[in-house]
């Protein structure tokens, strides 16, 4: 038809022009491949950079600087005996001892004029705990290692304020400083002094919130998935349910926070910033994730299982609850764990329901005001005090360890129990 097809001269593939063209095309091919490789590498490098930054800063958060303080307990306590501060009345006896005064006296005797502001605000509590654990200390002269103030802590670990640096240099010369593991960080609660803060309160709050979320979202999610996959007939209502679930899975989390604020707090009058309200809000957010994962798991159970069960006389409910659900459970659990991991890292909805207050104690019940681990990270990141930087990163490390652990568990479950039909 056209001239080109009729053209009798074949293409000269070995000619200069064609060779050049091929070389150009191959170069483009290589460039494209390198671009793809760079994209993957760049994403990975960013992740590595993020993790190393957090590790680099956060590991210091698990350490604290301690200072040696000599306590001449018999003189300081005017001869309190070990028996007086042990036994059932130990608490009251220790309370009447004015331990903060004793600590202040001891440190000013030893360090003189620089003693002002050497110790962290929680140091007296530490001494009290030591006496509680070992009442025998009170009858002897002891050298105790107590955590120092956050300014000195920062100055000892890296660069701090000039005045603090000078104090640290003077103390280091006397060999009075050492680095110890910061147990307070794992057992304590929020505080105004970064050297006295801990994540236990926030962690407990997160656990309680997650417990509520799991208790509500898991059963509802599984039942809804079973209904939609196994029983629902195609009608308007089913369509509406499906649209709702797909939409809820993509609604920004902050909107769930607004819902929690308007409905749970204002209409139902539930206690603000409690684990109960946090759990309810996150459950609404997690439920669609579980439904979608659950539907996929239920769908992958082959129909022959259902037909066999029906064939030997099982009712439709028995088919699902005795046969389909157990086979789909690993898939459902994987989806649930991933959904729970997402809920554990979620911050914005919890801020909406009031979890941004300063709460210096771990919650006792589900209606107590509490904070959660990601919220605690956010609150600490807002602090101006330099000492909070490493604490924030350390809290992030703890959070990431839990999230990675949950995701690893999900992957393990999927690999271990997933059946290819």
């Amino acid at each position: 038809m056209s001239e080109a097809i009729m053209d009798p001269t074949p293409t000269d593939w070995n000619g200069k022009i064609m060779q050049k063209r091929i070389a150009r095309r191959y170069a483009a091919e290589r460039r494209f491949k390198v671009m793809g490789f760079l994209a993957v590498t760049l994403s990975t490098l960013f992740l590595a950079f993020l993790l190393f930054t957090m590790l680099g800063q956060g590991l210091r958060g698990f350490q604290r600087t301690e200072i040696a303080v000599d306590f001449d307990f018999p003189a300081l306590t005017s001869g309190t005996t070990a028996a007086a501060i042990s036994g059932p009345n130990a608490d009251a006896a220790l309370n009447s001892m004015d331990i903060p005064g004793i600590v202040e006296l001891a440190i000013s005797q030893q360090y003189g004029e620089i003693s002002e502001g050497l110790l962290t605000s929680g140091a007296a509590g530490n001494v009290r705990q030591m006496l509680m654990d070992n009442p025998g200390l009170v009858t002897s002269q002891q050298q105790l290692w107590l955590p120092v103030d956050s300014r000195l802590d920062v100055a000892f670990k890296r660069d701090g304020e000039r005045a603090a640096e000078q104090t640290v240099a003077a103390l280091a010369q006397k060999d009075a400083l050492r680095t110890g593991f910061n147990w307070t960080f794992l057992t304590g609660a929020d505080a105004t002094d970064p050297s006295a803060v801990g994540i236990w309160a926030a962690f407990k709050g997160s656990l309680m919130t997650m417990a509520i979320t799991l208790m509500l979202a898991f059963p509802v999610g599984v039942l809804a998935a079973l209904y939609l996959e196994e029983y629902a007939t195609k009608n308007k209502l089913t369509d509406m349910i499906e649209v709702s679930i797909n939409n809820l899975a993509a609604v920004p989390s902050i909107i769930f926070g607004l819902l929690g604020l308007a409905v749970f707090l204002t209409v139902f009058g539930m206690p603000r910033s409690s684990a109960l309200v946090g759990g309810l809000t996150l459950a609404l957010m997690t439920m669609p994730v579980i439904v979608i994962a659950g539907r996929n798991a239920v769908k992958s159970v082959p129909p022959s299982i259902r037909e066999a069960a029906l064939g030997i006389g099982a009712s439709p409910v028995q088919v699902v609850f005795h046969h389909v659900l157990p086979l789909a459970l690993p898939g459902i659990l994987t989806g649930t764990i991933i959904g729970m991991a997402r809920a554990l890292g979620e911050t914005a909805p919890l801020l909406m329901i009031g979890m941004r207050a300063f709460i210096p104690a771990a919650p006792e019940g589900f209606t107590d005001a509490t904070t959660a681990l990601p919220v605690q990270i956010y609150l600490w990141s807002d602090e101006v005090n330099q000492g909070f930087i490493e604490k924030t990163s350390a809290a992030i490390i703890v959070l990431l360890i839990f999230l990675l652990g949950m995701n690893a568990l999900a992957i393990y479950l999927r690999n271990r129990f997933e059946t290819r039909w």
Partner: protein
Amino acid sequence: MTGTALLFLVLGLGLIGWIAGRARAAAFVRSAKNGPRGTVNSLPYYHGWFVAICAIAPALVFMFIWQSISPALVTNMVLSAPAAADLPQEGFARAAILSEARAIAQGFQTAAFQDESEKLVPLYKGALSYYKWIGVAATLLLLFAGGAYAFTRIKPDFRARSKVERVVMFGLLVASLIAILTTLGIFASLIFESWRFFSMVSPFEFLFGAEWNPKSVVTPGADNGYGAIPLFWGTIFIGAIIAMIVAIPLGLMSAIFLTQYASATVRKWMKPILEILAGVPTVVYGYFAALTVAPAVRDFAVMLGVSNAASDNALAAGIVMGVMIIPLVSSMSDDSIAAVPNAMRDGSLAMGATKSETIKQVLLPAALPGVVGGVLLAVSRAIGETMIVVMAAGYTANLTANPFATITTVTVQIVALLTGDQDFGSPHTLAAFALGLALFVTTFFLNYVALRVVKKYREAYE
């Protein structure tokens, strides 16, 4: 007795009902085997469930209803007492005193800020315990009545299984309806509070005003600083422009490399690593953006000669948000490229096209609808993202296209407006719900279109 204790008591009694019903039915089974009465219709444990459900369900429903109506009854009882007569008549002050007295009586609060509420505390305590015991008694009564009724119904020919299964089906339906209920709840609460907001501030000012500087006292008709255009622009600039400039090339190229070029081993290791990016909590990204990326971006801007670079600049927030989105774009592109029929790719390769030419000229055009759908989902994810922008972008509304300037977004302002005192009578608090409504409608629309596009495209190749 607290609500939790009552709940456990009800559940415990239900368990006893289950055991009793099962035992009675089991006795029938034994006698049916020996005697002339024929077979028993349902297995014993179905009878057990029947008794347990009949006992627990009415009690739980009653507890739920009682939970929602008893506060009103308590308030009525307190108000009818003579001590409550001298309360201020004005609605707001009255409600504040009542809610404080209630909080103290329930133990949520320890000290009163208003003297009047102090007096009401004993009244509240009395009324609360009065109605609480009525509730407990009625719950237990219902429980025993339901259990006893069910227990007498147990006979060998009683169709316990079909009854229980009907309840199960009902439970399944209710569980699915919760999704609709949640959507309606979101919609209703956003619409309701936004409507209250728009009765104070004109919708016209909100949607088209260019100045965002919210005042807590509004004058109708005047400019009250509720113009949301700078917020919408900031949201689009950070979420839909900067973040996408980072996420689309990286995500798309990663997907292409991993599906078309990488060996199976590389793919096996790299895919989960990319997924980790999606699993990192946003608060961590926000902290990273604020602490590490933002200062670096500012130094870079100063190096370029931009003098007014802010430390909380839009670029840092956008870049980090883009990195967060990479896995989403990558997995959506991955799916759509994999859905292109192999015949198309093989045909192109057979004609002598190189791999990259095949990808660029055959696979990508064919997969484009799926990729676009994925990008729309990614945009919807990015504009609803809160923590990164709260921590890394600023609070100042700024209508500018300078990426080194401070720009605020819708989500940042929702958080800012709801921080501190929340007062559902002031436009300050209500504006957050209007912003939330705008965000909800936008993301809903984006998700709907994205899912439509992806679905249509999948059908085209099936």
